[in-house]
Each structure stands twice: as C-alpha cells, then as structure tokens.
C-alpha cells in the first residue's frame, strides 16, 4: 500500500504533446478512476505510472520513491490489462505464480500463495486449466489474481471490464469494489465508462486532451460539474443543454432563439447568453411552468420512459417514471425549473454560479452525508 504522487507530468511523442502537465495526489488505499473519451491520455498516464511509457517531464512517486527511472518490475505495482494478457502456454496456476517465481520464491511458498489467491477469486477448480479453456469472466479473474498474488503497493487497471458482456461487467464491478474493501490497497483504474467510474471510485479524475477537467468524488462531479464537458460526460442519459438569452424581469427565465420561454428556479449570476443544463431525470412534465415541446420519440425502459422532445431547435431528453400515453408529434409541457439546474458560459463552457445555489448545494450534500 502506498500513495502515488503525480507532479506536472508530461508526455510527448516527438512534437505531439499528449499529456500537458498533470498533477494529482492519490492517497493510500484510495480508489481513483481516470475517465475520459478515447485519446484523452488516461491510458498513457496509467502506463507511465506502470513504467511502460517513458515520462517526458515531471515526476511520479510511489510511496516515498520517485520512480521516473525505475523499470516496471521495481515499482511495486501490478497491472490488469484490457485484454488480460495471460500467458497462453501456462496453466492458471503457472500464470498466477509467474511473478513469484521471478521474485525467487521457493516452490512450496509459491503454491501456498497461489492457492490463497485462487481461493479469494474462486479459481481453485480451474488451477490446472490453460487460458484457452476459460470463459471471458474467468480469464478476467485470473488476470486480477495475477495482480493480487504479488501484494503490490498499487494496483493499476486498464479498462479491465470492456471485453466482458453487460451482465458480467456488473458482477465484476461489484467484485472489484469488494476486493478493494478487502485488500485496502491503492487502485488507479482507467475506463471510458462513466457508470464504472460513478459506481466504484472514491475519486474520479475527468481527463480531456491531456489535461484534468475536474477531479472529485463521484457525487461532487455529478452535482457540481465545473464545465459542460464534465456535465455531459457523467450521468446517463447525458445532461440536456439549452442555449438562450436571460430575460430581463422579475421572474428568472431563459428565452430560446425561437422565442420559447423557459422558466428558471434560480437566477444565474450572468447577463445575456447562457447555457442551461438540466439532467433528464430532473425535467418534469408541468402544465403550469412548462414550455411546450414536440415529442420526437418515446423509449420505454420498463420502470421509466425516456422521452426525446424538441424545445425550440434543441432535442432534450426527459426521464419520467412509469409509462406515458403520448406518442411522437404530441405536444407536452416540459419544465426545467429545478434548483439543481446548472448554468454555463456559452463561450468558455465554464460553470456560472446561480444566486442561492451554493446554499442549495450545501443542503444537498448535507442530505447526502446523512
């Protein structure tokens, strides 16, 4: 177990910079998830921590050692790869024991440790099989076992679940989380799946184009995204954005380019054009304060129904509980007047605070703690 400190780390391939000076501190035992779209540098950063990529600038420390120039084997880390990377000609037991053998442990010691690990992961009946004879989920477990058996200071996961089918992914997500609780080890985990990030992480780091957009606990990021990118990235379905001009007058409202008027629950600290962001779950059908919207499509998911409707020239998604009677081309009144609405600057895409929203947030996080 150890802390990981990343200080102004940069990576460039020739003249192309892929990581532009990232700094963060990962605490002992923390589960940190790096998340972001393809090509944002999250895997590169992980591989630099592992020692598989050279560090072009900055410093990475694991525990109290600067590891910039240490080879991977001396960094006291273990890595689980997306494609598992099991040694095909070795049995599960040999796969698990390989690192111990490399470390020069005696055969009986290796056997004990391998058996312990296999027990934790339920691999005991499979120890004499080869990777080709295992299912996807079993291979995934062996790959994790290979990391656990070494008892490393830091675990690195590189999109470990993306090759599994949906059911197995949910199951393995829970297993990894349970494993983290059990081992209490530091984990750095890369994924592009925001649900994995939300459900497993102690802390999420959202990356885009080689810089950190925001980091914080999953709910901090969900409740208070610093910019439109983070707002769009977390949450499913994605947050709705409506661009318009703030109306002058008593009641806070947004006027869309087509002339539609949207009632707001709070007044943003800005003038002129702004972007309103409301999560689909918070959009309501409200005949009093609603703005008329033409339904494009309805998607029943069983418990909820997702309605995609057009307000002005923008498609918005609304999640309502239960079923809806209306169908395409019907007009429904959609209300966006919720205190938790987000406001962004259309130019910089940065967050604009709303008057009173800070208090509201404090109250909400208070509730979350309880």
């Amino acid at each position, binding site marked *: 177990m150890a802390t990981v400190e990343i200080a102004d780390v940069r990576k460039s391939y020739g003249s192309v910079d892929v990581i532009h000076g990232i700094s963060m501190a990962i605490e002992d035992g923390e589960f940190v998830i790096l998340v972001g779209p393809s090509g944002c540098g999250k895997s590169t950063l992980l591989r630099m921590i*592992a*020692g*598989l990529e050279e560090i072009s600038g900055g410093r990475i420390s694991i525990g109290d050692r600067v590891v910039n120039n240490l*080879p*991977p*084997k001396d960094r006291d*880390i*273990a*890595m689980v*790869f*997306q*494609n*598992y*990377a*099991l*040694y*095909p*000609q070795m049995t599960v037991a040999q796969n698990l024991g*390989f*690192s111990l053998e*490399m*470390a020069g442990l005696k055969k009986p010691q290796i056997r004990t440790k391998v058996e312990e690990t296999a027990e934790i992961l339920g691999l005991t009946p499979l120890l004499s099989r*080869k*990777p*080709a*004879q*295992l299912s*996807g989920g079993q*291979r995934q477990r062996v790959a994790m076992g*290979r990391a656990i058996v*070494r008892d490393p200071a830091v675990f690195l996961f590189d999109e470990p679940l993306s*090759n599994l089918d949906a059911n197995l992914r949910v199951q393995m997500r829970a297993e990894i989380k349970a494993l983290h609780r059990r081992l209490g080890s530091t984990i750095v985990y890369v994924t592009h799946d925001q649900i994995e990030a939300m459900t497993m992480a102690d802390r999420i780091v959202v990356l885009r184009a080689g810089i950190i957009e925001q980091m914080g606990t999953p709910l901090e990021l969900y409740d208070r995204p610093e910019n439109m990118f983070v707002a769009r990235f977390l949450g499913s379905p994605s947050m709705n954005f409506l661009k318009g001009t703030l109306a002058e007058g008593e009641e806070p409202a947004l006027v869309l380019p087509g002339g539609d008027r949207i009632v707001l629950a709070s007044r943003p600290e800005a003038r002129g054009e702004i972007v309103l962001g409301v999560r689909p779950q918070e959009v309501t059908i409200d005949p009093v304060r609603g703005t008329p919207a033409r339904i494009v499509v309805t998607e029943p998911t069983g418990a909820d129904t997702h309605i995609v409707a057009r307000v002005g020239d923008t498609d918005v998604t609304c999640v309502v509980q239960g079923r809806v009677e209306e169908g395409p081309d019907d007009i429904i009144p959609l209300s966006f007047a919720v205190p938790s609405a987000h406001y962004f600057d259309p130019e910089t895409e940065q967050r604009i605070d709303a008057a009173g929203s800070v208090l509201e947030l404090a109250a909400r996080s208070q509730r979350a703690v309880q």
Partner: protein
Amino acid sequence: MTAVTTTRPADEIVPAKRRDPLLIALWITLVVIALIWIAPFVFIFFTSLKSNAEVMSSSAFAPPASVHWPNFEGAWRNGDFGRTLINSTIISFVKVPLGLLISAMAAYALARIRLRWNKALVLFVLFGTMIPFQVMLAPLFTLVNGLGLIDTYVGIILPYLAFGVPYQVFILQGFFRAVPKELSEAALIDGASHITVFRRIFLPISLPVLAALLILDFVNTWNEFAMALVILQDSAMWTLPLGLMSFQGQFSSDYGQLNAAIVMTVLPAMIVYLIFQRYFVSGLTSGALKG
C-alpha cells in the same frame, strides 16, 4: 422460464447434400498437383530397387519384379556414405538450431526492444535476403580462404548462417510483432527480464513458426550444393549432395545404385519433416487474449 420442446420428424433436419463446385475443382487440382510431385519419387524409389538389367528392360514407373537390395549396399560403399552422411549431419545439426536461435533472438530484439535505429536495422536485415548468393560465391571463397577455413566445418557453417539468418529474422520479427505487446509488458511488470520474456513467453508461443522454419532450413541446408562445392574441396569433407555428384560421374550407367543413393540422401530430411510437422498446429496463442 418454461422449457418448450418441439418434436420434429427426423427427416426434416437432414441438410441438403450439395457440394460447392469450387471446392470440388480445388480438390481435383490438389490431387493432380500431388500426383505430379509424387511421380518422380515413385520413379526413384522403384528404380532404386531394380537391378540394372531390369531398369533397362522395364517401364520407369513399373514396380520392381524382384527387389534388388544390393543397390543400397553398393551405393553406400561407392558413394562413401559413411563419411558424407556424418559431414552433412554435423553441419545441419549445428547450423540449423544455432541459426534459428540467433534469428529468434535478433527478431525479438527488433520487435520488442525499442531502439533508435530499429526500422533501419530491419531494412538492413531485409537487404541481406535480397542478395542472390551466386553473386557472392567468388568473394565468399576469397574470404573463407583468407580466414584459412576452406575444408572446415566452421568454414561452411558461417556462410550458411550468414545467408540463412536474415530471412528467418525477417519472418520471425513479423511474427513477434503480432504478439500482443501486453503479453511482454505483463511479464516485464511481473519481474521478468527480456531474456526471460524471450525464453518463457515468446519461444513457447512461436513453436509452430519455429518448427516451420526449422523444417525449411533443415531441408535447404541438407540439400545445399553450390556453396558446399566451392568451400569443401577435400572429398573427406563432402556433404551428401556432393557425394551424389561424384556418384553420377563414376557410375552413370548404374541407375539402380544412383537412385538408391538418392533415396538414402532424401530420407533423413523426410524424417525430420515428419517429426516436426505436428508442431504446425496453429492456435497455440489462442486464449492469451479475449476470445
């Protein structure tokens, strides 16, 4: 969920038997080509078992009326097989494994160790495969002679290595490049050195391609004639193909013995082929990654 069982009459699930005409054409082509390739060997084998009188009197592809074993005995004696067989064996058994080992190590380095000049090195190696060795025969003789290695095993093995290695490096580095890089990275994180990764991971998973190269290289080395002719002047150092040549001059009238000698020359190469062909099975890497 309730299980729904549907019973079907047996005749309903019999698939229609229709063969793809293209497949049939391919099969016929295959059989014809096989016959063309097998014909000379049948001819050689039959002739090797005929007495000289029968060779003259019977059709070339007719089986021998009575088996004439003394051909083999005579060929062994007259062709000095005792000596040429040992020479060929020593040269092939040293050169082939040694060449493969050197090639595999070089290919690993080219494929997996990041060097500044990797691409240039691969091109350089590739260049080695492009020089026809006939062009090199005269300079090669001068060089080997200058080193005082004419009529020695080392003198012939070194040029064999020089001409065999580039081709193998080229094939193997392509194969090693296709091995997922995570596999070697996982091993490096697990604490393995490059030598260990090479020996414990890459060699086992490249057995099929190594076996293929071994067979090809063994047959090539075993049958090599021109370079051996230039470098091995002393008949005591001759390899089997050189022995055959002298045979043809001395006993050109005795076709039975000549063909017996050919059979004996070809046989070891065939045995090696049969031993290693079972490693041609593909799919040894399956299961390493997602599947």
